[in-house]
């Protein structure tokens, strides 16, 4: 009822191929963006902006990057955090060594550096597939943080390989408050998400999906496997690189190479799996689930502990939080193996028929 597109006629190809062909979706997206750009900065506290919204957006971007590679092009990667590290360190070095470098250009160059490294580590994907490729990207995951720690130049010879992000300033305007940082991250993420959404509908995106579904068949119909796989690695690493730069510049401020460890790669992979493999929106839903759920659980358990006087030690609450979180992931994957994005799709279909399902 709420979601019926009856009466919405498409009279041109442009209308038919629009990103959001249904009017309700368009309005929904406008409202969402209005809330994100205007409502949240006005209403949300600094805690929400710095501790929840900024990391959520940064991880969404990283998950989006991985989703392009794993969800759309079908190449499993465990090197996401390493590519993020490349982005962060490259951005830092561009800012440090080129005087007067605009920070947005540094972000893009950081992303491009990550793309170059991604292509390099994507080369084995031409010969090896599936889990074996995951092992090859695992090499990137161990090699890159090691290299950054080993070669002092990358961190400007800091004793422990830590990089400290320079203050962000765009056109003379300092981005130092949580609200400004949030808006900057939001703007970058929205632009890149829009780009990704269009990219996967383009010739390149269709080639990725063809390779994912069956690479032999794709080759037979004339898709160049080498180029397709490497563009997937490049684009994916670009997104991860920008996410890494934002992680360092807008979120943490100082990062150590060890922070970009296998753990982070796995977290981002889980975001993709829980959110929905091969879905742009799934990346956002997955990032929201993985970053927000533990916080919600911890707050809820601590509150329950004080409210009902359960007298549980802090160790017990931490452990039970992990248990509940793990249980929830399993629950969602059993209920809907295709992730939260698929759940949303099902909900939309139900809404379209509601309240007269048959």
């Amino acid at each position, binding site marked *: 009822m709420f979601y019926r597109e009856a009466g919405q006629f498409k009279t041109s190809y442009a209308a038919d191929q629009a990103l959001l062909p249904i009017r309700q979706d368009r309005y929904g997206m406008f409202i969402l963006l209005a809330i994100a750009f205007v409502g949240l900065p006005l209403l949300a506290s600094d805690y929400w902006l710095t501790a929840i919204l900024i990391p959520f957006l940064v991880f969404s971007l990283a998950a989006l990057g991985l989703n392009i590679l794993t969800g759309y092009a079908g190449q499993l990667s465990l090197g996401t955090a390493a590519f993020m590290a490349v982005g962060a360190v490259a951005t830092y070095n561009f800012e440090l060594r080129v005087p007067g470098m605009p920070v947005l250009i540094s972000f893009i160059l950081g992303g491009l550096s990550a793309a170059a490294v991604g292509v390099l580590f994507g080369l084995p994907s031409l010969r090896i597939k599936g889990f074996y490729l995951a092992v090859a990207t695992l090499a990137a995951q161990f090699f890159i943080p090691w290299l950054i*720690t080993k070669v002092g130049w990358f961190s400007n010879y800091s004793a422990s390989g830590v990089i400290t992000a320079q203050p962000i300033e765009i056109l003379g305007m300092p981005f130092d408050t949580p609200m400004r940082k949030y808006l900057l991250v939001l703007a970058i993420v929205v632009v890149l998400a829009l780009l990704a959404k269009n990219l996967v509908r383009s010739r390149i995106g269709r080639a990725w999906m063809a390779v994912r579904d069956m690479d032999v068949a794709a080759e037979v119909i004339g898709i160049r496997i080498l180029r397709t796989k490497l563009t997937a690695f490049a684009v994916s690493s670009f997104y991860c690189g920008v996410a890494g730069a934002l992680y360092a510049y807008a979120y943490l401020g100082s990062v150590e190479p*060890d922070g970009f460890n296998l753990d982070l790669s796995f977290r981002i992979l889980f975001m993709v799996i829980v959110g929905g493999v091969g879905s742009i929106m799934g990346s956002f839903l997955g990032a929201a689930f993985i970053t927000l759920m533990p916080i919600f659980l911890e707050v809820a358990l601590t509150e329950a502990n004080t409210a009902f006087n359960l007298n549980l030690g*802090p160790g017990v609450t931490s452990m039970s939080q992990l248990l509940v979180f793990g249980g929830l992931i399993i629950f969602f994957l059993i209920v809907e193996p295709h992730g939260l994005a698929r759940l949303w799709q099902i909900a939309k279909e139900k809404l379209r028929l509601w309240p007269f399902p048959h």
Partner: protein
Amino acid sequence: MKTWIKTLTVLLALTGGLAVVQPVAAQQAGTQFMGILGYRVGPYGANGAAFFTGMIDYLNLVNEKDGGINGVKLSWEECETEYNNAKGVECYERLKTRTTTGPTAIHPMSTGITYGLIDKAPVDKIPLITLGYGRTDATDGRVFPWVFPILSNYWDGATGIVKFIGDQEKGSLKGKKIVLLYHDSAYGKEPQPVLEAEATKLGFELKMIPVPHPGNEQQSQWLQIRQYKPDWVILWGWGVMSATALSTAQKVGYPRDKMVGIWWAGSEIDTQAAGPAAEGYYAASLNLAGKDFQVVRDVEKFVYAKGKGGDPKLVGTVLWNRGLAAAMITVEAVRTAQGKYGKKPVTGEQTRWGIENLNIDQKRLDQLGFGSMVPPLKLSCADHSGSGLVRFQKWEGAKWNAASDWMSGDRALIRKMVEESAGKYAKEKNITPGCMKG
């Protein structure tokens, strides 16, 4: 119909999950609120549990025995970071807004989280106390007014170990061979510049051998060591790496009483895991272990006897005692700040002044019941580290016994290197070094 219900339940659960409610502030009005970024799960959970239990036990002791600090009761909240940088920052942001006075002072207990908070601390006016870890060059308080690498930093530890080895070798290290076996991470790299400087200065030969994380396989490293035949091995380990190093040393026949560990490789957790292989092993320490201190007896009497204690098994271990000392430093800083700003809950900014003007001499330590557990501590704007003293302990098979008095390393050399490094940071960040007023 069935799928419909299922979808609905799932959606409900999801929206419930997303609606992260801002927690209701507990009844903390009028108390000195302490924010604790703790970790009790994850790979370093065992270490964290001992440290944070000690910390909370001491805060309980202050409340139970003295009724707070000059009548101001203490309250606290622990937030689980899982030793994860992103979660650590989230916890920090959450605890920061809990009361009007803020979380007093933060002990991140993780080098990674420390780095994540260094830029936030000056903006939020919350001091960071990094007890024996973190950024070494933060010792220069003119560049890092909000960071306090209290007791000793890694360079104090490294030069202290060299001095201890020198003492064992009757004063001269000329021509000796020393191996640094280190955890291949930012933590393991921290002592390298100062050890290289020491090697040139004192004329010993230094070989540095990395152990990749997590360090549970060290056969090849120890074969290298056996070939090289060093006079001493410095063990810069963390977690499982330390115990593995000890047992592999036994396997290749390297004497453990020629091995000296840094303080993070010197807790019961490390030596007990290695069993008899650990016997004779030395480790630097920031604090002594054991229950033979008045403060520990007080904790048992006022906290554990009333059923408010954390875990009796941890009492008296190295890390539990370190937790006591950490809490004591914060409490004394608050007391110092109260001396200037009045007997009410103090803010982070006032606590910062309190830490910078902290002066805990031996007399005060005896009053507090700490005795010789930690060295006296006096800080200033230029020196945020304090004593720089370390003490060596020897594992005698069942417990740690003191093997030296409090001693300091090459402080002049460290000071020079700290100022160089801090100066570079100040230039990168456009900071004009200077002391803060008030």
